[in-house]
């Protein structure tokens, strides 16, 4: 079953990295491109199921919207980053200490207390949050109007959506992973075409700017990523 696409963001699905870059008149790297990115509509998630994928598309589109300044989460393929991370070591909590005791409702200042891996948090929290939306707003998150979606996410951030204690880090994870997908090297699936780097003027993995230290000027050269692609 293809993912259900929320109508408010449908036009944004045009934006796989290359086409977005062309539309924006950005320089395209001159070297032989790797596999061209398939559109988000045609992308087959590695971890997320159809409903989860639809939720991530809708939620990240509100966290970093495409309207206004700079590219949004969808043109930069943040959902792909999140899906891949959840399918890999990050999702499986490979680098986290995952032995008990777990006191899920301990003081938040004591840090992560959930027995769940990040992938499990997403898997359990998405339907729980969607159910809260149904209950309080009359429809699942994806079907809500953008302003209502923003309000729902605000409630999620404020801990007012009745999530179980072991899911309380969901918003923090979602926000963090969205930012990471936006700014991380494109090799991880997000930041397509280095668009976020171009937007903020980050020159990428060039690693040496000795001649530019202390100069109050814009560094003129576009970014390079870890794979050596140029934009």
């Amino acid at each position: 079953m293809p993912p259900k696409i929320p109508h408010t963001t449908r036009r944004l699905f045009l934006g796989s990295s290359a086409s977005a870059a062309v539309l924006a008149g950005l320089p395209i790297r001159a070297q032989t491109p790797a596999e061209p990115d398939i559109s988000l509509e045609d992308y087959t998630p590695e971890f997320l199921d159809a409903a989860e994928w639809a939720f991530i598309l809708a939620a990240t589109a509100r966290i970093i919207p495409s309207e206004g300044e700079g590219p949004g989460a969808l043109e930069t393929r943040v959902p792909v980053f999140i899906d891949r991370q959840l399918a890999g070591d990050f999702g499986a909590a490979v680098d986290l200490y995952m032995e008990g005791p777990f006191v899920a409702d301990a003081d938040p200042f004591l840090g992560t207390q959930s027995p769940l891996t990040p992938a499990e948090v997403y898997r359990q929290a998405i339907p729980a949050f969607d159910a809260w939306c149904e209950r309080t707003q009359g429809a699942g998150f994806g079907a809500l109007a953008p302003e209502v979606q923003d309000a729902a996410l605000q409630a999620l951030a404020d801990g007012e959506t009745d999530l179980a204690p072991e899911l309380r880090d969901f918003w923090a994870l979602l926000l963090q992973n969205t930012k990471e997908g936006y700014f991380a090297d494109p090799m991880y699936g997000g930041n397509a075409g280095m668009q976020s780097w171009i937007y903020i003027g980050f020159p990428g993995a060039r690693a040496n700017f000795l001649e530019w230290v202390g100069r109050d000027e814009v560094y003129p050269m576009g970014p390079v990523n870890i794979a050596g692609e140029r934009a």
Partner: protein
Amino acid sequence: MRTFLKIVGGLVVLGIVVLLAIIFVPVQRTPAQTALAADWQPQEGHGEYAMRLSDCMACHTEEGGEPFAGNRAIESPLGTIYSTNITPDDETGIGGWSLADFRAALYDGVRPDGTHLYPAMPYENFRHIGEEDLRAMYDYFMTEVPPVRQEVEETSLTFPFNQRWGLRLWKWVALDDAGFTPDTDDPVLARGQYLVEGPGHCAACHSPRNMVMAQAGTGAGDDAFLMGGEVAGWTAPPLRGPQSAIRGWTEADVAMILGTGRNAHAALNGEMQLVARDSTQYFTEDDLQAVARFLIGLNEPLDPAAETRDDRVTETEQLLASATPDMDLGARLYLDNCNACHFVDGRGADEVFPELAGNSLVTAESPRGLLTMILGGSQLPSTALRPYRLRMPGFAHRLDDDEVAALASFLRSAWGNAAAEVDAGTVADVRDAQL
């Protein structure tokens, strides 16, 4: 007519006799060049040190194998030659060899049974090793090296190079007189000359080969001596002359790179890394200084006007520092891939990142060494004084053939470098050879 036939017949018979003589008459072995007392004994450690000076280990030890048990594949223009087992094992090594047998192998390139050794064994140079060092080495191999029973791959070159008797003719042409007489009264220079020409066998790689593939210069008196050669696809740079890799270096620079694999200008690459790993890092300070002084002495002192080049900001430096988006691909690739360590002035950092300006690997006539370095990277050997194995990553996954060609061409023309451009086809060849 009959007379003519007689003459022809006579010549044929003579030819056959000569051929049989070449093949079957035993080779005259070169005797000891210095008479030592029969009870002469090397000092403790002398034999091992002489082995280090001669770097027996690099060729006679397989990667990961027992020391001196041989079987290392040595690529030569004629084919692959497998080094022999020189541990004192009676059956597979040199356990049954007499001192005279050992000397004949080093001086004349013959085994006890008269078989000629391929000149991958540098007897062109080893025939200048002194009797003390030779006897100490013999003593070391016989009494200190543990015997290892290991048969090695048989070297089988294609015809005519598999006809080892032909080497006897080759030696008549190629070998000069055994023994060593220094060109100088200065004891330090004389020691340096001995180490370079004899045990160090520098000329085996750093001298060009002549028409019969013999070293075109084995001693300081020869014009071609250390004027650069080729080894396993890499250029062994000239150590003297206008393209000298050590031009402008001090004695301390030369001693440093031999002792540690790195100095303020450069880092050893290719086969020379093995030389530092197995040989030169074990040289005494005095011997390193002697080698350095001798090698520097082969080079013309730098023109003082040329030295000011170092302080000038080059056009390349200005271009790279400008970071203008429309610069040529090669320069852009330098900023994206190399600049982090080698910097816009191409001067790197002392003992860590080699200089690319004036770098002999970068400007070598054949770009293969440079391309191998860009594609595959390199890792310095650990040496006692500089143990850290500094590594440059390879860029094969990051740059395609056109990009590597553009980058290499840029490097070869930047900061005053003046070497020919590189095309993508050459890059593809080197990439294939690396896989």
